[in-house]
């Protein structure tokens, strides 16, 4: 009898009271895992040297200090690195957003021989790891032949400039471009064909239909692609380590962060806590711009992914 009663009460209790409670704890735990490193970063980056070794200081420092930031800013040449990172990331993201939209539309709406084969190639570009083909790309940009011009001047070295990223972005290639083409194709396929037919009847050709009808109605998906491209270029350390290893960008600084901090603090072993604080300060500097963008655009971003439903 108690069993039956428990069943009736239990079910309701689970639905009304218990489940939200369990859910709260699960979500709280996961959020803790996600926020903890950031809090830790902020907490240790603002500590003065004397507080670093003080075991009674857990989260909030007694002597607030910006010295680690100042040191790291100087060391990675923050203004210059920030400028270069913005040039690379924003520039390439804009180019990829445009070029991949064009290509995705081409794949979505035009039937021709060999289209399926070419699309397999798009999928292959998604699957092949960047690291696999970086080597020849490195050589290509190290000895870059500008069409026609290089007949007279010979090759130029484009490494450590934004041009390798821009050229690839313009031509619908580069970091995860295949994925963007895929996303656009799925999106354009889901658009009602009547729109274009109406435009054709009104005298638009294929290009003006694309520019005047399709692009304006795909702003949401363009925002999504732009954000993804921006973030992935910003965080990319693999390609940056090869194509711009000797230039000042935040991604490169991030790669060398620990070595830098060790070097600065005289070997690291002497004062590991200081090295640690410097590393955290440097990492915070590197992701700060993205965090700001994120704080401003997160809602649009998630909403646009959800509303456009990417896969269609």
């Amino acid at each position: 009898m108690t069993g039956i009663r428990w069943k009736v009460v239990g079910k309701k209790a689970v639905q009304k009271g218990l489940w939200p409670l369990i859910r709260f704890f699960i979500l709280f735990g996961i959020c803790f895992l996600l926020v903890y490193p950031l809090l830790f970063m902020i907490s240790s980056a603002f500590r003065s040297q004397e507080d670093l070794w003080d075991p009674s200081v857990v989260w909030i420092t007694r002597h607030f200090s910006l010295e680690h930031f100042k040191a790291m800013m100087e060391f990675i040449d923050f203004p210059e690195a920030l400028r270069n990172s913005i040039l690379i990331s924003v520039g390439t993201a804009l180019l990829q957003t445009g070029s991949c939209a064009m290509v995705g539309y081409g794949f979505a709406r035009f039937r021709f021989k060999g289209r399926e084969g070419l699309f397999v190639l798009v999928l292959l570009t998604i699957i092949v790891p960047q690291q696999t083909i970086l080597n020849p790309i490195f050589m290509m940009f190290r000895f870059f032949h500008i069409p026609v011009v290089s007949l007279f001047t010979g090759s130029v070295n484009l490494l450590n400039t934004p041009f390798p990223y821009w050229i690839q972005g313009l031509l619908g290639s580069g970091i995860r471009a295949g994925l963007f083409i895929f996303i656009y194709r799925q999106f354009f396929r889901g658009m009602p064909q009547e729109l274009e037919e109406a435009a054709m009847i009104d005298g638009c050709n294929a290009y003006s239909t694309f520019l005047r009808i399709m692009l304006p109605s795909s702003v949401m998906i363009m925002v999504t692609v732009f954000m993804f491209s921006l973030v992935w270029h910003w965080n990319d350390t693999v390609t940056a380590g090869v194509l711009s290893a000797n230039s000042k960008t935040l991604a490169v600084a991030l790669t060398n962060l620990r070595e830098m901090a060790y070097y600065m603090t005289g070997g690291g072993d002497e004062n590991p806590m200081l090295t640690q604080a410097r590393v955290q300060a440097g990492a915070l500097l590197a992701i700060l711009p993205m965090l700001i963008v994120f704080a401003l655009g997160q809602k649009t971003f998630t909403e646009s992914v959800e509303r456009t439903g990417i896969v269609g």
Partner: protein
Amino acid sequence: MNKRQKRRGLSYAGRRTVNGLVFLSPWLIGVTAFFVYPFISTFLYMFHDVTLEPGGMKMEFTGLKNLQEVFINSPTNVRMITEALASSFGTVILIMLFSIFAAVLLNQKFHGRAVVRAIFALPIIVSSGILLSVFKEDLFVRSIQSDPSTIFQSTALQDMLQSFGLDVTLVQSISDMINRIMDIVWQSGVQILLFLAALQSVPRVLYEVSSAEGATTWQTFWKVTIPLISPYILLNGLYSIIDSFTFYDNPVMKEVMNQFNDMNYEVSSALSMVYFAIVLVITLAAAGLASRHVYSAEK
């Protein structure tokens, strides 16, 4: 005028072909220059002795020597690859389970949902293997302060489980999984986002019908939600496979980059090409197996 006539002369299909190719043209150049050509080059490096010289690369044909060097003469490489594959495989499964679970939670209505969602999107914004390793610096600091209670280390739990008399290997695998929770959570950002999109794409009517028919939430989840979001499961699975097999922390990828930085181009290309071939086979097998079970509205 001649041109115009020619244009008229083209059939509708022919004109569509031309238009389509025009739309594809930037990519056609790009994919040839930055994908097909580098891919073939890397493939050829495998069979050559490559040296960097002023003005370009010098290649000397050596046959299968490099492959032999990398996979037969080296004591560690084969083992490294198998271990990397095994660990990535486990990661992919855990990521999928976690991200679908998280998406279902985030899709429910509760107070503060917007904030929680924003936090869950963090990994997308700061996704980078190097950052993840900086994040884990905490471990290092706590060990200096001789505080055993780090959140990413489960030695205490390990001891406790073993004292209950559980098998050592079992305890080890459990604690391995717990130690990887941090990685899993931080690698699931995009997947959770895609699953959220998937859950929102399921028509509400279906839920109403199934609840009217007396189905429990559990049954509805398996009979309605899962089939309808199965295309997303496939996409997410493939994305996770590729992402974790090429993750920055992956030992094979690390070795490829090390060899590259040491200018051992032939070694780095042989290693990455063979590894890629294996990943491709796994991806295709997974896609082939899964696509049979994927729900499609057009059927």
